[in-house]
């Protein structure tokens, strides 16, 4: 399997705080990779750096063989790197449909985009029902679905998700993860930052566990699921 995304010794931070220290990771074709770790471990920072919202202080990121630096976020989307941000990031005063169309904003192929819209409605029927509603009036779960649907409209070649389960009821989370599985099976590699380790490990092939901005553990999800160290990293010794 070829490597879709690779980070090499990436260091990044906010002002005086270093949030990532020499992080190296990979996402290969057809994979689902999970980024795990307690709060403040650096999961969100990693995704933001890949999306271009935060500059790297050192190290490099390559996507489909080409370096990502110095592309701004707008251009990374055009390359196919699409981020579903933490907290959904939907536009509250725009309708569901307008939000979805924004996902396709850079696309020129309107007919194909319309077809994709139908596909999104098929995946998330509730969005079709609420298509003319203002996105701010949707529930948390519906907003998450909207955010994912919007990302799909951008024809991602790599889908980044930041804590998709955050603040959502278990039933909703399960549905969303099923959709994510379907997306993955359709061919898109996923990189998911999650606090809910077990759920993420159920979906992922491989995982990295971050602590204090460094990778502490990595390996196959199957193996990590049984590893007592994982629990210790989350809950302390």
């Amino acid at each position, binding site marked *: 399997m070829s490597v879709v995304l690779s980070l090499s010794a990436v260091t990044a931070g906010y002002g*005086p705080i270093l949030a990532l220290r020499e992080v190296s990771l990979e996402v290969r074709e057809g994979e689902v990779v999970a980024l795990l770790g307690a709060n403040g471990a650096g999961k969100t920072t990693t995704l933001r750096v890949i999306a271009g919202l935060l500059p790297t202080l050192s190290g490099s990121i390559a996507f489909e063989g080409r370096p990502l630096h110095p592309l701004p976020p707008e251009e990374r989307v055009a390359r196919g790197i699409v981020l579903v941000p933490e907290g959904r990031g939907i536009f509250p005063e725009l309708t569901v449909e307008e939000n979805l169309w924004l996902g396709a904003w850079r696309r020129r192929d309107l007919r194909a985009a319309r077809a994709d819209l139908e596909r999104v409605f098929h995946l998330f029927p509730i969005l079709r029902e609420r298509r003319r509603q203002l996105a701010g009036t949707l529930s948390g*779960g519906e907003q998450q679905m909207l955010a994912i649907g919007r990302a799909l409209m951008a024809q991602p070649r790599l889908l980044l998700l930041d*804590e998709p389960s955050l603040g959502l009821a278990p039933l909703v989370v399960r549905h969303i993860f099923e959709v994510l599985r379907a997306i993955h099976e359709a061919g898109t590699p996923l990189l998911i930052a999650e*606090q809910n380790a077990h759920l993420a490990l159920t979906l992922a092939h491989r995982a990295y566990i971050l602590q204090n901005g460094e990778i502490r553990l990595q390996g196959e999800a199957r193996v990590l699921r049984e590893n007592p160290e994982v629990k210790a990293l*989350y809950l*302390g010794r």
Partner: protein
Amino acid sequence: MARRIVWGALIAGILGVTAFTLPSYFLYILSLAGIWAIAVIGLDLLTGVAGQISIGHAGFMAIGAYAVALLSLHLEAPFWLALPAAGLLNALIGLALGLPALRLSGPYLAIATLGFGVAVVEILRRWEPVTGGFMGLKVPPPALGPWSLRSDAAQYLLIGILLVLLAGIALRLIRSPFGRAWIALRDREAAAQAAGISRARYRTLAFAVSAFYAGVAGGLLAYRVGRVDPDGLTLMHSIFLVSALIVGGLASVPGAILGAVSLTVLFHLLSGLGTALGWRTEVGDVRNVLYGAALILTAMFLPGGLWRLPMHVRGRRWIPVPSRAPAGEEGGERPMVSVPHIHLGNSGGGRLEVIEVSKRFGGLQALDRVSFTVEPGEIVGLIGPNGAGKTTMLNLISRFYDPDAGAIRFEGHDLLRRRPHEIVRLGIARTFQNVEIFPALTVRENLLVGQHPQARVGLIAVAAGWPSVRREESRLREQAEEVLKWLELSALADRPAGGLAFGQRKWVELGRALVARPRLLLLDEPAAGLHPAERQALRELLRGIREALGCSILLIEHDMNLVMGLCDRIVVLNFGRVIAQGTPAEVAENPLVIEAYLGERREEDAQPTALRSGEGRA
């Protein structure tokens, strides 16, 4: 004391010599410069130090000018009555304006002050019977008993002396608890309130003091020009005042003077040049272009103004600093705290009761009937996955907003009836997730802010520079010194906090909380961003604090090692509800807790669930 006499003699000497040797025209220009300088110092206190934008200050000057005119014309008041009266009148109006201004910030405040300034001019223009309408009024020269100060030299001296006095008062204010309170509110409002500074009080006070200065300046202008009229102090003048402030240097008394003097002199040089070259009407326009350009260039490239140019040239970053300490460099050693051997004085611990507290933000139930207690002297950890409501809980205790339901009591006091700045007086101090230290103040001054409720100084005493003020300041510094030593921050005490490394800032924030001798310490993610070594130091420090001070501690944390090793009891929140409480051992084995953090340990559910409307809201 000796210093004051030397300075006083020097200034008196300069003033005296220049008054009698410089030609009249120079004295006139310098007089005007001095008047503007007084107004700009006042504006600086409001905008530079207290951080509130005003582009209507010419309005205050106009009120002062007309007040002096009317008092002189109708009551033949001597200047030493008319000027203070004008100042006080303005102070009252400033207070009145400051109250509604509390709800406004940034651009909205700018618009409101713009409206104020222009409204004053309009009123003065239309209130003919009193103000003489657009014709204005003539103003007799300042009277002192039987003498009238008519000559350029006399007026120059009067203005010069007043400038020195008022500048001295401004400097004293900035270095006092008042100045620190203003700066703290300007830079980190929430932390300032948590340290006991009342937003309402200090913001309105800043307006009042600033207006006082503008009123005196306006009165002096009335005397100097010999007349008042509504076109003399317009929006353009308000913008000039802001320009002088920015160009000279924000939050700096010498900067304010420098800005006012240089722009005034520049304008008159231009006028002179214009006359010599024969272009009369265009001087005003050239002036506007130059002022505008100066304003833009300074704001972009020299944010500290001309006064900070030397610093800029040396490559240092400017942080508005009231004391003379140079800006610190990044880096430096992290303090390693050993078991404290200095006794801080046991203030004991208080009992916190949280009873059935609920809070909703829009569609999100942040807290749902949460109840727990912190016993005196206990260390309780508040943990839970992201978004569980922990910081909300702390913010409710700090009273930044109200709960929808429930009660919060500390040592029997009902916290819900208190405002944010009253909490620290009850014995509760806190730190913040984002390390809210005041970057423009030194480490020592940061701690002094923490002692704000204990500072007993009056505005007049500070302004006059009475010895009692210095004694009080010494007393506060001594207390702060103890905490500085305890935290091993003494070496950094006089460095601006903004230049410190991250770990050092955390210690400073803790110091600020400790210096208030709290009986309950609220800590929001104290370990976030720290190295393992620093975390170890933190753990020992917190234990040490509990031993030395005897206070209760409630801390939010994600670092489980720290929490498990430090806390007596732990409260676990998830989705805003308490899902477990108990000792660390109990909580670590609690299946609900494990599930909350790691996810459910169940076999995969293979049935897809198609979602219809009506599923549970998060």
